[in-house]
């Protein structure tokens, strides 16, 4: 990777890295916070400008890191003229906004948060303009929607802020969704998601039958982002944001993203009639509509918002024309609009900050009170109006020039006429901004006494105003930048000639009409305003809210209709659908002829089969008697374990019998506090339906198994058998699969088991501290009971069994890699050994002798397994690669040590902890229910030779809580 491309990646990353800092630096004060926000921005800007000479010479700097190559997604960046222009604007204005926001935000606003959001947004924008991969571009595109949501809703206490942020997110997010579709189509047409490839394949794209859908979808994304009609309504509502956000997002960056995208895609998509009629028409409508509405807005920021909508429409229209001259004009106007609009937003912010109102009807006469602000505001507003000698004039001339040459639907005058109409209104609202805010007499009813703000606050807009004048008077200064960007847009070298005076052209006459018309409109503003207020017009927010409510209602109806919370309904739908799908798949395929003979059935196996069938049928018949059903389930578990042994799967048999035991105990523990019989809840028809579905599904599975067992099918077993010893170092294939081949699955499973244990614990905790505890305490669970709680025989037997069982557990664990066994079974065996103690001597007695918390056992298990897996990284292998070797210490014969054993230890601990925690949690219920517990090992202790008065009598019992 060259230095250039490395620096490009750094530029793209800097804002994101910088975003980590302000939240911390705010503790060092507001100035430090602002400085540390400006630092990464400034650094990125300097690094960017170092590339400027090369990029102006037409060089394109590229950088690429593979990300998900299978999807065609790579972190590819490139810097050409257009990217350079936008990146410079984003970073440059970002710096100014950082400065301005430092003085704009008050002491109560969380400034660290603000700067963090700002840098996140900056990074996302930078990503858009530098991406060389459209999938990457989409990611950054969504990131701008998200980070702008945070910025717009920054004042969380204001409902308008929250609603505006939500609306912006909904509209731009929906557009982004459409754009994803469009970009994917585009990528499919070209066969690459690389932007450079796509831009080079313009011919192919435009000739493709999917061109129009792709175009429409991508334009939806661009139009929503750039607030084009009919999606323009979100932008004014987003003005509830703090002014620095409006100045940044809504003049220079976010709303320009859509324009940027159209400019970027220009070589690939532009030049067709579809492009012209969609883009130019939408742009034209937006331009006129935005300008008209702006004139009647009393809120300064709303006026500027609609003016922005109008100017974005202008840019869109110019790009829609599809000619090279129009593209040059668009690029030039992008620069100009940035300079005057950002300054105007900041001016509006200053007025709001000082006068405590943005309502034009309450302002006026500010020129005398805040002269500096007035000068800045007047110059920039004149530029916005397109009045010489400011930069807005030149780009507007160019726009009118292009409009004059444009024929729309064989009609040569409609575009120039409408463009001029837009310009008339544009002049009118700009003049209104000047005269109604700064002009007129000084009033004495401002909410606060206005005066010029501190230097820090007006420095940023003042700098932009200097640019406005400079570019206006000496437009040739901007020529190299415009050429640089326009060359990148059009794909071939352009030669822009920017002059203040073009001679007596039609555009000049139209300009004069616009200025005169605008002045007349302003003079007539009062009666027009009255008419406007009286006129009925659609309220975008109300329509949007209704639409959103309707969509949400529809979604709710669908989800509530299909998810009504009835388990049996879900199961019925699921099982029936699976059965039908299975049948369809089966009936459509031609199975090969059976290649295996049926094996003879030994009589003992037949007996097992009969047992299984009868027991299953009994469960169905007697399931309402819960205890009886549990006993019969015990039969099923036994026969299945037996079957595993018979079919040469001793590992499975061991696991099955242990799991059966633990499950039965869990169910019995729970059953103690539940009704002993299940009531009849469903009607006969329902049960018939469920029965039919169950029988069909069961028959289907049986048929499938039968068919498969009669045929030779290629399976993965062969691979496992072949590689178990040489790859995993174990002869027990089952265990090697668990700890090595599928180690990752096992790792996930023990985590799930641990989580299940912890959840049961947490649920019990919540249950026992909630209202259920009172009910438990007041229910009488006493039944006809044996009086001997802890029979002597059982206590002694379990004590004797304990070391044996533990030893067996250790033995099974140690040999697991080569012989039947392993951590899972060992964990279950040991937990059963412990559970026996709980049953024999009671909860309290055992709990006192238990030193390690089950929670930490789970934790250690997962940690050990995870560390073992991660240890493979040290050897440069992927996660969970196991290593093994053989050792020989004299008294012991040669043995093998495998890292898999450590992993297995983790499994062992997690299983033991998980199982014990579940049973422990359930058995705690009884004590909350008010049962007394025993601290002695048994009720009658023969070693205390005083005739049954030993410890453990009722006076020695303790009662918890």
């Amino acid at each position, binding site marked *: 990777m060259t230095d250039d491309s490395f620096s490009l990646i750094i530029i793209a990353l800097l804002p994101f890295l910088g975003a980590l800092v302000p939240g911390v630096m705010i503790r060092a004060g507001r100035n430090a916070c602002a400085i540390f926000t400006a630092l990464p921005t400034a650094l990125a800007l300097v690094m960017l400008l170092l590339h400027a000479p090369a990029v102006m010479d037409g060089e394109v700097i590229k950088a690429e890191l593979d990300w998900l190559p299978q999807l065609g997604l790579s972190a590819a960046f490139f810097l050409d003229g257009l990217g350079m222009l936008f990146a410079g604007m984003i970073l440059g204005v970002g710096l100014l906004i950082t400065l301005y926001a430092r003085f704009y935000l008050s002491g109560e606003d969380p400034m660290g948060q603000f700067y963090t959001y700002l840098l996140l947004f900056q990074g996302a924008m930078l990503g858009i303009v530098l991406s060389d991969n459209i999938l990457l571009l989409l990611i950054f595109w969504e990131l701008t929607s998200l980070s702008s949501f945070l910025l717009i809703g920054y004042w969380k206490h204001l409902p308008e802020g929250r609603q505006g942020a939500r609306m912006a997110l909904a509209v731009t997010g929906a557009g982004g969704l459409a754009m994803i579709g469009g970009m994917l189509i585009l990528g499919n047409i070209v066969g690459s998601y690389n932007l450079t490839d796509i831009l080079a394949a313009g011919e192919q794209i435009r000739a493709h039958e999917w061109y129009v859908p792709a175009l429409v979808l991508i334009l939806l994304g661009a139009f929503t982002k750039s607030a084009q009609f009919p999606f323009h309504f979100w932008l004014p509502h987003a003005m509830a944001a703090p002014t620095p956000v409006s100045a940044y997002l809504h003049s220079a960056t976010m709303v320009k993203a859509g324009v940027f995208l159209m400019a970027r895609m220009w070589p690939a998509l532009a030049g067709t009639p579809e492009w012209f009629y969609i883009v130019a028409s939408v742009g034209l409508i937006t331009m006129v509509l935005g300008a008209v509405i702006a004139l009647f807005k009393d809120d300064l920021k709303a006026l500027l918002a609609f003016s922005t909508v109008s100017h974005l429409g202008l840019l869109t229209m110019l790009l829609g024309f599809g000619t090279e001259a129009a593209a040059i004009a668009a690029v030039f106007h992008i620069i100009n609009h940035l300079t005057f609009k950002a300054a105007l937003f900041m001016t509006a912010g200053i007025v709001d900050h000082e006068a405590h109102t943005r309502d034009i009807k309450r302002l006026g006469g500010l020129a005398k009170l805040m002269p500096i602000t007035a000068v800045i505001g007047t110059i920039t507003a004149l530029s916005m109006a397109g009045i010489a000698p400011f930069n807005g004039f030149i780009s507007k001339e160019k726009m009118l020039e292009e409009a004059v040459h444009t024929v729309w639907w064989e009609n040569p005058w409609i575009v120039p006429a409408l463009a001029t109409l837009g310009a008339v209104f544009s002049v009118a609202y700009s003049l209104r901004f000047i005269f109604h805010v700064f002009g007129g007499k000084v009033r004495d009813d401002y909410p606060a006494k206005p005066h010029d703000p501190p230097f820090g606050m007006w420095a940023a807009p003042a700098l932009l105003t200097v640019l406005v004048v400079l570019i206006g008077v000496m437009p040739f200064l901007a020529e190299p930048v415009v050429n640089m960007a326009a060359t990148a847009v059009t794909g071939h070298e352009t030669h822009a000639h920017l002059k203040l005076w073009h001679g007596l052209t039609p555009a000049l006459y139209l300009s004069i009409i616009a200025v005169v018309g605008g002045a007349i409109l302003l003079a007539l503003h009062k009666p027009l305003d009255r008419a406007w207020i009286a006129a009925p017009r659609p309220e975008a927010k109300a329509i949007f809210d209704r639409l959103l409510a309707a969509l949400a209602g529809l979604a709710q109806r669908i989800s509530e209709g299909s998810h009504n919370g009835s388990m049996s309904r879900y199961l019925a739908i699921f099982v029936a659908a699976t059965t039908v799908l299975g049948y369809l798949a089966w009936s459509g395929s031609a199975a090969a002829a059976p290649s295996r003979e049926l094996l003879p059935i030994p*009589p*003992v196996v037949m007996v097992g089969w*009969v047992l299984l069938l009868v027991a299953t049928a009994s469960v169905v018949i007697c399931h309402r008697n819960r205890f009886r059903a549990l006993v*019969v389930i015990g039969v099923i578990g036994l026969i299945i374990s037996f079957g595993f042994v*018979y079919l040469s799967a001793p590992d499975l048999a*061991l696991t099955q*019998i242990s799991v059966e035991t633990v499950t039965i105990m869990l169910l019995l523990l729970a059953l103690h506090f539940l009704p002993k019989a299940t009531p009849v809840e469903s009607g006969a028809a329902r049960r018939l339906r469920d029965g039919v579905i169950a029988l069909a599904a069961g028959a289907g599975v049986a048929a499938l198994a039968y068919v498969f067992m009669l045929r030779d099918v290629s399976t993965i077993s062969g691979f496992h058998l072949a590689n178990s010893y040489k790859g995993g170092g174990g002869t027990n294939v089952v265990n090697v699969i668990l700890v090595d081949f599928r180690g990752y699955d096992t790792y996930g499973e023990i985590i799930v088991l641990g989580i299940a244990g912890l959840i049961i614990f947490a649920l019990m905790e919540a249950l026992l501290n909630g209202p259920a505890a009172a009910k438990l305490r007041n229910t009488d669970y006493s039944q006809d009971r044996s009086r001997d709680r802890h029979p002597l025989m059982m206590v002694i037997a379990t004590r004797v069994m304990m070391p*044996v069982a533990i030893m067996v557990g250790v033995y099974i664990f140690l040999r697991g890699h080569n012989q039947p066994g392993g951590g899972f079974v060992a964990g279950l065996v040991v937990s059963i050994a412990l559970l026996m103690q709980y*049953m024999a001597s009671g*909860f309290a007695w055992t709990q006192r002798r238990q030193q390690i918390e089950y929670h930490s056992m789970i934790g250690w298990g997962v940690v050990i397994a995870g560390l073992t897996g991660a240890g493979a990284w040290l050897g440069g292998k992927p996660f969970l690669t196991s290593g093994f070797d053989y050792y020989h210490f004299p008294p012991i014969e040669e043995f093998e040590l495998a890292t898999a054993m450590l992993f297995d230890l983790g499994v062992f601990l997690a299983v033991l902890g998980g199982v014990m925690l579940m049973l422990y949690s359930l058995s705690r219920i009884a004590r909350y229910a008010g049962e007394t517990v025993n601290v002695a090992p048994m009720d009658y202790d023969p070693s205390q030779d005083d005739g049954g008065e030993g410890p453990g009598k009722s006076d020695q019992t303790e009662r918890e809580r």
Partner: protein
Amino acid sequence: MITLALLFAFVCFGLGLLFCLWRITIGPDNADRILALDTMVINVIALLVLYGVWKGTAIYFEASMLVAMVGFVSSVAYCRFILRGDIIE
């Protein structure tokens, strides 16, 4: 000879399993059922040992030991349930 003896034993324990099933099905008492289930476990252990002898391998013997070790625990749990209600007091 040993084959005949094995066959005889298989038949006996198989029949034993079926009789236990009969007891579990008709009851009449839950204690009968638990007893029958425990007997079943013992029969299965026996069958496993017999099968190991039949096949001439030790692997089933070990499995039968394990079944013996944990198999009775659930019987104890069932019993504690009907005797005391709560299996872990």
